[in-house]
């Protein structure tokens, strides 16, 4: 799953090393437009429902945290 998420992230910006980057939001690498684009791709790809409360910096700061969020939401379903 992580590799697929990184592929999606590379579609947004391809100049970041997503395996090591852990401040995507805190450092302003992704803006709100990027987040919304990412959310709609994650929704389609993994068939999950991401709501506004999930849009916290902690959930989107790294590929790993995004992966953890997707897994959590899949389990909830």
């Amino acid at each position, binding site marked *: 799953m992580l590799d697929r998420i990184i592929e999606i992230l590379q579609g947004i910006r391809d100049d970041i090393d997503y395996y090591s980057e852990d401040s995507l939001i805190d450092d302003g690498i992704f803006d*709100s437009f990027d987040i*919304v684009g990412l*959310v*709609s791709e994650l929704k389609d790809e993994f068939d999950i429902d*991401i709501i*506004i*409360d999930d849009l916290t910096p902690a959930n989107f700061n790294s590929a790993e945290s995004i992966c953890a969020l997707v897994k959590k939401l899949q389990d909830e379903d």
Partner: protein
Amino acid sequence: MALTSFYFLVFLAVVIVLYYLVPKKIQWVWLLIVSYAFYLYSGIGQVFFLLGTTIVTYGSGLLMQKRRDRYKAELASDPSMDREKKQELKKKAGKDIHKIQVLTVVLDLVVLAVVKYSGFAISNINSILKSLGSESAIPGLKIIVPLGISFYTFMAMGYVIDIGRGKYEAEKNPAKLALFLSFFPSIVQGPISRYDDVGKKLVEQHKINYENLTYGAQLIMFGFFKKLVIADRVAPVVTQIFSVKMFDKLSGTTMFFGMLCYAVQIYCDFSGGIDITRGVAQMMGIELPLNFERPYFSTSVAEYWRRWHITLGAWMREYVFYPIMLSKPMSKLSKKVKEKHGQKASKYVPSVITPFIVFILIGIWHGANWRYVAFGLYNAVIVAGSVALEPLFKKWAEKLHIKTDSKGWKVFKIIRTFLILGISKILVKAASLKMAIKTIFKIFTSFNLAFGSEMVKYGFDLGYKNNIVLGLAVLFLFIISLLQENGIKIRQSVGKWFIVFRWIAYFVLLIIILVFGIYGPEYDAANFIYQTY
């Protein structure tokens, strides 16, 4: 009571001394008392609006909390409950909570609309009636806009939405919520704080702390410097240049100069006021959120809105932008576009539509006037346009062999963004939308490089001495901002200086404010611009 008035400083001294003298348990009660005393000073009638909003917000929060607690109790009462039943209960509770949430937000908006926008609506209806040949007109309502209503109403709505979303538990003590909504320095012009952040800090116990006292006092002094030495000094020039009577007399170049002056004035006025607010809070150990991060160093309009009035931008992002972008109609639209025009287009459509809604709201938030609607639209067009045209810009940059990571390109982008925003500020400052458009047109068509002589001729040149003071003060502010932009923390750095130099610096700044500050009658400074929003 203006934050820069002599009376406010006396009031502040009493508040802070007693804040540290009263038992720590009741420090927050003291803050509530002085906040309401401060508010009452602005008019007894106005306090009812604040009280009403507080009571409705408190009650609504509690009702939602009760409904959520009931749902949790229902779940806990039957551990063997099947998934379908759980889902059903969740849906039912969600619906009930949503109803309370929507009703409260609508009520908040109705009060805001009646107080702030009814005059605007009535005058528009009357002008339509007049154009239709009717002689009857609706009489205007005479309501004084309560101090800080746009700020505390947004804070109250944020609280209600957060409780509805289950982000944190509702406040059980109405007095604590009342303090959050009325905290005296920030009620004037923000920042728009959030309950889970500032609400908690306000009721914490605070010990006297040398660092907080000195850092807070420094921030207050810097705010005074921005407001009294720069903003209020340049204000008369701006007023004259954008006055209707001067329009035919002045060249476009003078108006361009006026635009630059207004950009400096509004930044120093608003951010100076916020510095004072944050400084006051810090002296009592309370950290308020940042509202400015050197916005004129932004390389794009979208970035500017993340660095100017940060708390309003964050509010809009959290409660308007994301909900619209993630809403069902928007994702349906996005899917439709995806089917017809592919992945890329589907990303752009919501990214182009939503800024229009958000920026028109930001425009209207500032006030009831078509100028503000135009201001919102202008910003939306720039932000949405830059998202839509981003691939094209990238291609051009490649073709023209522009090094997009070079310093020169960055400086170019900063100046370009500043000028684009300057135009938007004319929309805010001009006497009417028509005058604003005429002014912008004139800037591009009427030139006179000796614009200074025009100012002398019509008697609103500041004079040699004032021009020097203003120039040096702006240069000082620019250098400080540049250092901060490069990661240097000024207050911490000054704090490490040898004690004698440090105190000399404080005294010099104080003397500059006292000698070069612009004071009105009874040493009261002019009111803040954002106080009227």
